[in-house]
């Protein structure tokens, strides 16, 4: 997969909490990417085996809301995205740091 700035932005968000489940809209807000850019990246990550996906359990979902699709990192994804983040830090350390701070706050 080609290492782009958008991929690095998604990688930083996913690597902040590697065990957590992530949603499309949440990822798009945190990584500051339009969904037109984000969803194709997620699809590529899924097909590469870096992410796994699933659907919320309808029993646990609040009433009136359909279950959402979540994305979760796989072990392979942790390794690959770790490499993407460290490469991004080397290439653009300031931008990566600002992005990480923005996500943390």
């Amino acid at each position, binding site marked *: 997969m080609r290492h782009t700035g958008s991929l690095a932005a998604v990688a930083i968000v996913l690597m902040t909490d590697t065990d957590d489940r992530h*949603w499309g809209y949440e990822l798009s807000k945190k990584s500051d990417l*339009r969904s037109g850019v984000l969803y194709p990246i997620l699809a590529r990550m899924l097909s590469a085996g870096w992410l796994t996906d699933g659907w919320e359990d309808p029993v646990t979902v609040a009433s009136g809301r359909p279950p959402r699709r979540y994305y979760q990192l796989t072990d392979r994804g942790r390794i690959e995205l770790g490499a993407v983040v460290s490469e991004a830090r080397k290439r653009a350390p300031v931008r990566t740091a600002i992005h990480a701070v923005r996500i943390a706050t």
Partner: protein
Amino acid sequence: MNILTEILRSPWLYGAFLAGFGFMPPILIRVFVLIYPRGHERRRELPAEMMAVPYKERPVWLADQLGLALTEGLRERLHWLPVVAVFVDWRRVGIQFVMAIGNAGLGIALLSKYGIVGAGLMLGTASILLISILVSVWRGVRLGGRRDQLVALLLTVMDPAYHLTVAEPTDTRAKNPPDRWIGDP
């Protein structure tokens, strides 16, 4: 052209736009996801995601989803195009395309004189499609050595899952170790 400017000037257009993007996002998102092929995850995912989007952000979010559906969804619907590309002589299609544009222009010029611009546009589009299909099929039939691929093309167009099923090896047990067999007692 007059019809187009009249449509663009019409307050109904802006009213419909505001009503659709401002007040009816749940309906519009369900229409947009129809662009994706049947059974695609985005058909469920995007309406569910919309519930998490704040109201004031929904019009922009919706416009973004329309763009996504048109790029991602249409590409998946037109999955058979790469197979068609095997048969197509692109120089010939280029010539045919220019001719079809000429036909369309002529059609528009002739029919707009009688005030039927829409019919001219439809005629042009239909002629482009028809010529492209005829060229690709003719080219495929002419290439005798690729008859099996022509059959594959027809099967792919009729059954979207065909290109996945042909990729499956016939003897899966030979490829997989015994501990990965599914359904064995």
